[in-house]
């Protein structure tokens, strides 16, 4: 990096001596002692603030745990947290983490608009970036198929695909469907992928209504009136924030789900706000990639859920585990790259080690695919009131792997779905 800037400065006619005097490029070994600085980007404001908070909590829990156990290769972990907001400001925060704070790795990134901008910046700055929940997909197509430094979350549309598979299993007789999704890429992609899966799986369904309210709307009574008019057999939504709670409540007030099935692909993100009083049994509900009440859950998950509840009085949503996995896989990769020595590995070595690595995460085993996409399980199921909480849980619980529900590297989504053996 330094060379070409120097060349440029020479070109502009100033001395190379001045350029050489720049203090920035401290040699790598100088940083080998002291804590490992880990940059974290978390959304704090707006509709995705709860998701950002969950990711941060997962990361902090991980850091406490790692530090109690002696750190990474003997170095304690130090988190440097910055805010993810709009793409412009987040790119600036990202550059600050790397250029000013000199972190070893950046974790985080949720909104696709932001992570599309972050991807190329990460590649340019040559420091690993492990995204919690953001991809570098434009719509459902990858824009960075072979990144060197960027590690991306599960494709956005996976939970809609998983929900499509389960719809075919649980709601066989459905003939007409309506969709209500947010008016942005995630909402549109989920709806189209969901319909494509239903069609491929031989369900002869007709979409009768597709509503795309703006992100952040808090009153759906008019949308529900439109749904009542369309009278679908099934309503699908990919709402994942407070809007899922609101939709559920306002639907209950007019008894909407007495006359139709419901598929909430992602509402598990706010699962403990889905109170039994207004959330019926028999809906398909997706928890993305972590289900806090997994009967087969590991001791690690149970400990995390217990401590999260004790500390925040809430049951953790999935984003905690996206974040936990990013951090834990980084630790595993650094240790792997060190190859048994206590020598801190170079960033490029850590990135090599990350490719294909599998670690024990909160929800079970997770890994990075060779093309830097997160691999994990998705948890969805049919809502039930038979539990000790005041909100719904699911039973039976279905576990669908990204191996089944995510397009393989280098394929186009709809070609891949159409190529399924039904």
């Amino acid at each position, binding site marked *: *990096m330094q060379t*070409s*800037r120097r060349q*440029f*400065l020479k070109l*502009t006619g*100033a001395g190379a001596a*001045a*350029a050489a005097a*720049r*203090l*920035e490029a401290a040699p790598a070994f100088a940083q080998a002692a002291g804590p490992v600085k880990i940059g974290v980007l978390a959304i*704090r*404001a707006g509709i995705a603030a709860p998701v950002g908070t969950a990711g941060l909590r997962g990361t902090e829990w991980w850091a406490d745990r790692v530090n109690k156990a002696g750190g990474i290769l003997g170095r304690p972990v130090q988190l440097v*947290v*910055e*805010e993810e907001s*709009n*793409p*412009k400001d987040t*790119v*600036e*925060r990202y*550059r*600050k983490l790397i*250029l*000013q704070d000199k972190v070893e790795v950046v974790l985080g990134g949720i*909104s*696709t*608009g932001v992570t*599309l*901008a972050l991807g*190329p*910046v990460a590649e*340019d*700055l040559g420091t690993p970036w492990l995204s919690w929940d953001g991809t570098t997909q*434009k*719509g459902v197509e990858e*824009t960075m198929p072979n990144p060197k430094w960027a590690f991306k979350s599960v494709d956005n549309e996976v939970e809609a695909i998983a929900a499509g598979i389960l719809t075919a299993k649980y709601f066989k007789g459905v003939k007409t469907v309506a969709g209500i999704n947010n*008016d*942005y*890429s995630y909402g*549109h992609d989920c709806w189209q992928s969901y319909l494509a899966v239903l069609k491929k799986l031989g369900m002869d369904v007709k979409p009768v209504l597709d509503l795309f309210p*703006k*992100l952040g709307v808090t009153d759906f009574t008019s949308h529900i009136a439109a749904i009542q008019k369309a009278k679908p057999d099934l309503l699908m939504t990919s709402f994942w924030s407070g809007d899922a709670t609101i939709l559920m409540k306002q639907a209950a007030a007019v008894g909407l789900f007495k006359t139709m099935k419901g598929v909430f692909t992602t509402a598990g993100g706010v699962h403990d706000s889905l109170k039994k009083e207004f959330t019926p049994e028999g809906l398909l509900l997706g928890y993305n990639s972590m289900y806090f009440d997994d009967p087969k859950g590991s001791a690690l998950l149970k400990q995390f859920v217990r401590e999260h509840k004790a500390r925040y009085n809430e049951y953790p949503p999935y984003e905690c585990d996206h974040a936990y996995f990013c951090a834990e896989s980084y630790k595993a990769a650094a240790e792997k790259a060190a190859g048994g020595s206590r020598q801190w590995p170079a960033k490029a070595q850590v990135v090599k080690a990350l490719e294909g690595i599998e670690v024990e995460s909160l929800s079970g085993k997770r890994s990075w695919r060779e093309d830097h996409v997160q691999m994990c399980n998705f948890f969805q199921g049919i809502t039930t009131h038979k539990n000790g909480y005041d909100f719904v849980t699911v039973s039976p619980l279905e576990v669908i792997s990204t191996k089944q529900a995510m397009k393989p590297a280098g394929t186009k989504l709809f070609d891949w779905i159409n190529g399924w053996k039904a």
Partner: protein
Amino acid sequence: MTGGLVLILALLAIVVAPWVAPTYYLLLMLPFMAYAVVLLGLNLLFGYTGLVSFGHALFIGIGAYTGAFLAAHLTVRSMEVFLVAAAIAGALVAAPVAALCVRYVKIYFGMLTLAFGMVFYTFVLKFYRLTGGDEGLPFPRPALLGFPLDAMPKTDYLVGPYYYYSLAVLAVATLGMWRVVRSPFGLCLKTIRDNPAKAETLGIGVTRYRWYAFMISAVYASVGGALLGPPTGNVDPTLAYWTHSGNLVFMTLLGGFSSFFGPVLGAFVFIYLQNWVMSVVPYWRLIFGAILAVIVIFAPGGLMGLFARARPAEVARG
């Protein structure tokens, strides 16, 4: 004379900064220079004509999207083309918008501009096939003066050639605006601001002059918007959201709207202060809200006003 000296020193500092300042602070100079161009234009309306636009982020959006759109759909890669196209697009959009807005003043003017800004924002979000919706459009690295510079790492490109390129654009914009406000036209605007009735009796076409001022200011904002594109590498609808327009007015007021360089200083302080506060406390909006309140109540002349109060005779007033 001290004003001139400060200006020369500031310019010198900006020119030599790439040799001495840490890269990250250099990178922050890029949005500063882009905003400075935007605010020079905004202040022609605000400070000189007495019209406060709460929708100027619309033109930042137009400028940024014009560049991204040319790159995405016509594979253009030249920054000069982006800037000229942004200026033209900004002028084309501004012509009818300005014609409608300048019929009103004060709060109605502010509301009308806000409404147009939100229409554009909604349009960009809604027609995602054309605009990329919430994902926006990539703004690929442009060639500067015909040099592709693709081989350079992006950061070097930004703090090297692009830095000086932005500085040149800012310098040209500043000189241009300086000429405008010192011209008879600028004097007419000030007369309109202070006393529209008098201006009318003097034979100044008040509405027509306001329209001119709006047009110039929109073109500046569009050019500034295009300059914002390459550092982020992506343009998105939040550029046009109403709170962004609010921030523009915030910056102008922070620096001082009654001084020529006030808005430029405002952009500088806003960006570096935000960078610092965001790193220190998670609740930076609270702090910034408080700062804004303090300025509005105690220092309506902004930072320039404070300097001017300290040394009344020495600060050049536009």
